[in-house]
């Protein structure tokens, strides 16, 4: 990377100007360290989420897919920013100059969001070092306890890790979520508990990003447009503004919402919005019938081949997606005590994929080490030392 540093000099001027423009618009953020790098490294960081995270086969699969997609030009990652202090941002060296100018403006939007959004105030800004520490720890445990054992543990932990909630602070509510329950009560050895804590901590870092993905990307895109209309000539702006509409859904949804807030109530209202909201409350408060039509988002029924633009339905589905990450909502039943662990699927009408259910329970059993039950699909699945059964 050291070798690539010099070519960053061509961006120094524009970085300074964009930074000044951002401050003029009332934005405030921690320093941003820009790095120029290749698609391959960006794919690497994107697959793991953090550049120096512990190694796991799962990232390998994601990495392989990202690289394939980039080679086929189906999809490219334009930019990558980390929620750390200082913030680290990666620019692709194969982007054109103008593309990278867009990215820099976009990155300042993210940096501002990281620094000012209420939900990010308690986030761990030292995650780069934490992830490094976890990786070293895991490597030393692999050495001490055997690679296979540690890898099996990681597989099980990553499987249950999606049950974290970075917003939840009440211990009682937390205990209903599988990973916190296991952290508190599972009969784990010390090193296993240490790894569990590490995985949970990293999962919370990503959970926060996931729960603010639309507002964060929307805000960054909105800032990008605000700054660039001031920086670029009309002609340059015309040539690239089409980029803004061609972004993935979270970008366009968030961007459209912020634009409508500014148009209705002014720029300061948008600034307020980015400070106090996360995805669910943003959608709940600002999505209107008109915006649903304009964004052309709808609930689709593949059987009936029907689209529904009904605001209530779209909103509800979007919010549910955000609240439960599109995954089934599984909670620890309060009646669980002692060796019994009973999990309940909260949305019992919807069927779970049976094959995965068995594998999931096997992973939970690997951590709980006592019989695990799950109420779903109109029956109770049990996983114990004899394997899976259901009644």
């Amino acid at each position, binding site marked *: 990377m050291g070798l690539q540093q010099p070519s960053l000099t061509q961006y120094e001027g524009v970085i300074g100007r964009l930074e000044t423009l951002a401050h003029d618009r009332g934005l405030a953020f921690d320093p941003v360290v820009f790095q120029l790098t290749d698609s391959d490294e960006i794919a690497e960081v994107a697959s793991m989420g953090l550049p120096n995270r512990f*190694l796991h086969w799962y990232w390998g699969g994601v*990495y392989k897919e990202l690289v394939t997609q980039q080679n086929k030009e189906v999809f490219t990652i334009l930019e990558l920013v980390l929620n750390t202090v200082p913030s680290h941002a990666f620019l692709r060296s194969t982007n054109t100059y103008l593309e990278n100018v867009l990215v820099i403006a976009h990155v300042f939007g993210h940096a501002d969001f990281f620094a000012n959004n209420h939900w990010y105030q308690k986030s761990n800004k030292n995650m780069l070092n934490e992830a490094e520490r976890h990786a070293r720890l895991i490597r030393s445990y692999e050495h001490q306890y055997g690679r296979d054992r540690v890898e099996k543990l990681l597989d099980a932990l990553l499987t249950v890790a999606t049950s974290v909630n970075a917003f939840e602070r009440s211990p009682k509510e937390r205990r209903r979520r599988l990973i916190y329950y296991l952290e508190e009560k599972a009969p784990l050895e010390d090193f296993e508990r240490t790894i569990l804590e590490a995985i949970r901590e990293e999962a919370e870092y*990503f959970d926060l990003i996931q729960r603010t993905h639309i507002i964060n*990307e929307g805000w960054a895109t909105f800032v990008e447009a605000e700054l660039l209309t001031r920086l670029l000539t009309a002609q340059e702006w015309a040539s690239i503004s089409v980029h803004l509409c061609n972004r993935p859904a979270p970008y366009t949804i968030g961007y459209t919402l912020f634009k409508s807030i500014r148009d209705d109530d002014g720029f300061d209202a948008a600034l307020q919005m980015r400070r106090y909201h996360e995805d669910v409350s943003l959608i709940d408060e600002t999505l209107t019938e008109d915006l649903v039509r304009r964004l052309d988002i*709808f*609930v689709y029924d593949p059987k009936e081949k029907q689209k529904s633009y009904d605001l209530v339905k779209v909103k509800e589905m979007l919010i549910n997606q955000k609240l439960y990450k599109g995954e089934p909502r599984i909670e620890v039943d309060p009646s669980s005590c002692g060796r019994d662990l009973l999990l309940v699927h909260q949305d019992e009408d919807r069927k779970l994929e049976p094959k995965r259910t068995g594998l999931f329970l096997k992973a939970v059993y690997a951590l709980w080490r006592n019989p695990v039950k799950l109420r779903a699909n109109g029956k109770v699945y049990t996983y114990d030392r004899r394997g899976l059964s259901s009644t």
Partner: protein
Amino acid sequence: MRIHRGRIAQYKHDQLLREYLKQNLNELIQQKELILDGKVKTQIATLDLPTLKFGEETQFLAQGSGSGGAGGQGAGAGQGGDQVQALGGLLGGDHHGKELQVELDFDEFVRLAQEVLLDDLRLPSFHDPGRAGEVEAQEQVELDDLDRIGLRADLNLEETMLQSLLRNTRESGRLDYDVDVRQDAWYFIEDPTTFQNNRSVEVYVLDISGSMRGEYLALVRKTIFILWHYLEKRYPTNLRRYVVFQDVAEEKTRDEFFCVESSGGTHISTGFEKAISLLDGVTEYDKFLFMFTDGETSSGDFDLAKKRFDEALGGFDLVCYGHVNPGGRGIGGFSEFVQEAVRTREGAMFANLVDLETIRSAMRDFLGFFETRAARRPAAAAARRD
């Protein structure tokens, strides 16, 4: 220097994938369309962390065609010209919980399949390259060049250089590596041009009439993959041609051959006929015909098929007839005729392909062909000396 974590992780992933494919080979190998764009696509839930998922999405959020929803979960469902793109990528973060689709190079898939099959069948695997093995040229081969392949060859080359240095010093007093192959060369091989004859042409003929699917295809493909293992070790190059037939026969590319659509009746004669026509102008030394069928040729075709079978025996060095019979039923129809015929005819082999065990004995018969040849060779060489 950069530590390439992405590639290290990918290596780990691929190792697991191999294990996974080994366990699911049977399911994969039966896919009607085995190759798409040169790749094998897995349809089974791929290597993934077993997070819970809903069994069936009754409704989902989607976006019209106007705005692209790149990345993300769920495939777009194009319905009746109206583009519907499932709304993906709503989460961002570390891609955790995202479903992966795995593609595999066809060659890589074949290698994996061979590994599994050789293991299952407890067949010997060959490691020695057979390029010097089966030459049966009329003249004594002339050893006039150095072997240049492999570690041994490197050592030989070193020895050769040393010899030439010693000779040059001795003869002309110069420290010079002026190699005279005839005098210095340490290990010889025959002139590479004679390798031309050490090649095989393999014609694979597959019956794709109505019944050839599922288990039938699995048996045929497994047999072919194991055959490839041995043939590739035997010959430095394998010229492969593929024919499918039902009422009529057609030559296909490899990729098409592994994506068959079965339909129609059976005229075995057309398969033989096409195979024979492919021998026109062929200079390869060994010519193989591998025919896979369930033997139920239409009654009017029987006599013609017999005739073409005879012609094939004349044209090919070995005609292997695989009667594909996953149910293990009795052998009838044209297969019955071939089974009888091979007892008295040279250069023909019959295999009743019922399961892995029968593939195994078929392979033993097939390898027997090479042994007979090897046994015949010293006699031929002796005859030449006389």
